[in-house]
């Protein structure tokens, strides 16, 4: 116990006293942790509440489910309420219906007798529980399954093509000397300066002219030649000794074999970094799919979510649950990556 306390109170400098900067540090760190994770946790908690509970104010921190009971003479299970009776005692009653400010209730043990109770005197009997239908319904009744599938298809194929094309270009730019190599590199640097928002209109017409409009390929293809990816891989490949390639050539390996049997396996760490970035970028893409896709069944999760959230009657219980689903891959990446974040993802992430 004292070891833990010692660990937690370990601080900079000498002496045993806490400097005010130590206190400020911990306030900032704990406050920061609450700020960074709190909103996502609130989203997850809310996503398990049923619509009635979502409309409540003040909202409860945890999702609850109202207890129900099957009462003789009623087909549907009835919600249970704790009711304060006129004599001050408390009884658990099932509600049949609510008319204005009074509720018609029955005692589950004695279903014959109807009681009229002012609604101010009753509180729902409820336990912590999850409204799982928020997660099930959008997949069954709406297009969310299609959105999920589209997002997965776009993310996986774009990432695979990004790895292939970027590593091929990086190989040519790092392991061969040829006329115009610097010019090619310069062009690739130059494309870093051209964000999507600057070429939105003509890119749309190019995609239209190539017949890719309103298809998933129209979302995938323009994204695959990332300058960041080419750079990252090229820098890594420059560190691979050329002797390996020379030795392979002696053994009559073709250039293509050198690429995929020697260079690619040795570049695996950099490829993994690019793969992770690519998955996060493509999964999160919003503006470009929003413009290219106009048929609902082709929407990706991001576009679908925005569309449902933009409707006049926002069905928050479904939106929140689907937002959580959209968040899952990123949270998985985060959990696996958090050790590596310490060691400078920043340099590679400039995009």
């Amino acid at each position, binding site marked *: 116990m004292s070891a833990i306390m010692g660990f937690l109170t370990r601080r900079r400098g000498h002496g045993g006293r806490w400097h005010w900067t130590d206190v400020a540090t911990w306030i900032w760190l704990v406050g920061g*942790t609450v700020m960074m994770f709190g909103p996502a946790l609130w989203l997850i908690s809310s996503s398990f509440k049923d619509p009635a509970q979502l409309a409540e104010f003040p909202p409860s921190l945890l999702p609850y489910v109202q207890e129900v009971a099957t009462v003789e003479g009623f087909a549907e299970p009835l919600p249970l309420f704790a009711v304060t009776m006129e004599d001050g005692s408390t009884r658990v009653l099932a509600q049949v219906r609510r008319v204005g400010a009074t509720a018609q209730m029955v005692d589950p043990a004695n279903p014959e007798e109807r009681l009229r109770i002012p609604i101010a005197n009753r509180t729902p009997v409820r336990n912590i529980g999850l409204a799982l239908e928020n997660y099930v319904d959008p997949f069954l009744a709406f297009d969310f399954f299609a959105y999920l599938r589209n997002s997965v298809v776009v993310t996986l194929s774009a990432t695979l093509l990004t790895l292939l094309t970027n590593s091929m270009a990086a190989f040519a730019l790092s392991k061969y000397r040829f006329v115009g190599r610097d010019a090619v590199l310069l062009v690739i640097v130059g494309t870093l300066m051209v964000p999507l928002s600057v070429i939105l*209109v*003509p890119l749309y017409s190019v995609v239209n002219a190539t017949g890719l409009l309103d298809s998933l390929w129209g979302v995938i293809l323009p994204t695959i*030649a990332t300058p960041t990816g080419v750079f990252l891989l090229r820098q890594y490949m420059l560190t691979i000794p050329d002797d390996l390639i020379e030795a392979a050539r002696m053994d009559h390996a073709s250039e293509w074999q050198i690429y995929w049997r020697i260079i690619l396996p040795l570049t695996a760490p950099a490829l993994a970094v690019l793969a992770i970035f690519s998955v996060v970028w493509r999964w*999160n893409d919003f503006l470009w799919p929003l413009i290219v896709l106009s048929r609902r069944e082709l929407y990706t999760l991001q576009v679908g979510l925005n569309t449902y959230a933009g409707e006049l009657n926002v069905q928050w219980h479904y939106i929140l649950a689907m937002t959580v689903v959209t968040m899952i891959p990123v949270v998985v990446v985060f959990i696996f990556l958090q050790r590596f974040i310490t060691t400078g993802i920043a340099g590679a992430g400039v995009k």
Partner: protein
Amino acid sequence: MNSLATLLGRAAIWPLVLFARVLDPVLRLWQRRTGTGGMIAFFLLPNLAVFGVFVIVPLILNFAYSMTGSDQILLGDRRYVGMEQYDRLLDCANYLQPLTCRADQFWVAVRNTVVFVTFQVSLMVTVSMITALILNRNIPGRGFFRAVFFFPVLLSPVVVGLIWRWILQREGLLNLIVTNLGLDPVVWLNDRFYTFSAAVGVSTWAHMGFYTLILLAGLQAIPKDLYEAAEMDATPPTRVFWRITLPLLGPNLAVVLVLALIKGIQIFDEAYVLTGGGPGTATMFMTQYIYEVGFASILRDPGLAAAASILMGLVLVVLTLVQLGLSRRAEKGRER
């Protein structure tokens, strides 16, 4: 567990290996015909073709678009109007009052973006700087806390927008806190000031982790002996900060500043999902203007959108060149 992962990895890679094998004889033939030069072309072609078709061609077409009028999207159906779109955008009696301009919405977007960038970048640099300084201290669980601040960076802008819309709505978490403090609940996203502040705050929340990591890398590159020498001389911490930390971190700070500017000017996704540009046009920024004029509005005009995007592109090119220069200086400083 580990061997299962390896097995799954092999199974996933297997079709790719097969693909590479099948391709090999074809490429051998190609190599024999064209030599190494042909192979270099083969390796470069897919990437350059995509760059060419989806970046370079649109870039050139953008100038053509900006000189044509009408609401047609195909370039062939549009008529040449010369510099008229630029005249329209820049025709203004008083640039500080968007309503006196012919393209009033454009100037509203420009003004909003300038105000947004001013506040967001200052907030971003301040908050990331404080966080980086704190994470650079010798605290337990440092690795964990570094990751914590990076978490929102990975979230999709749509998710970020929806999370905060949910918190800021009338029955939301913020109003729960506000009422617990004894104040009246507010419909935050119906108010121009609160909505604009929310856009600034939320985008800072979402991206500060990224800039914190850059600054942290800069802090860790500062030689430790400088601090040891300062401690020997019993230099007060504030003086150490102003005399050692800040000057040596300067180049990194400049890179962060310009990068945040470049990203801030392009703000769209999370702000659009959070506010939809409203209330009214209070949070309509440049990219949303281009998107709406080019695609979404009833009176769409791709030529006007193209001209506006070229003006924005010019600003971004200047800033990017500044940033490349600064990063080079920052790197040189580290080598020295």
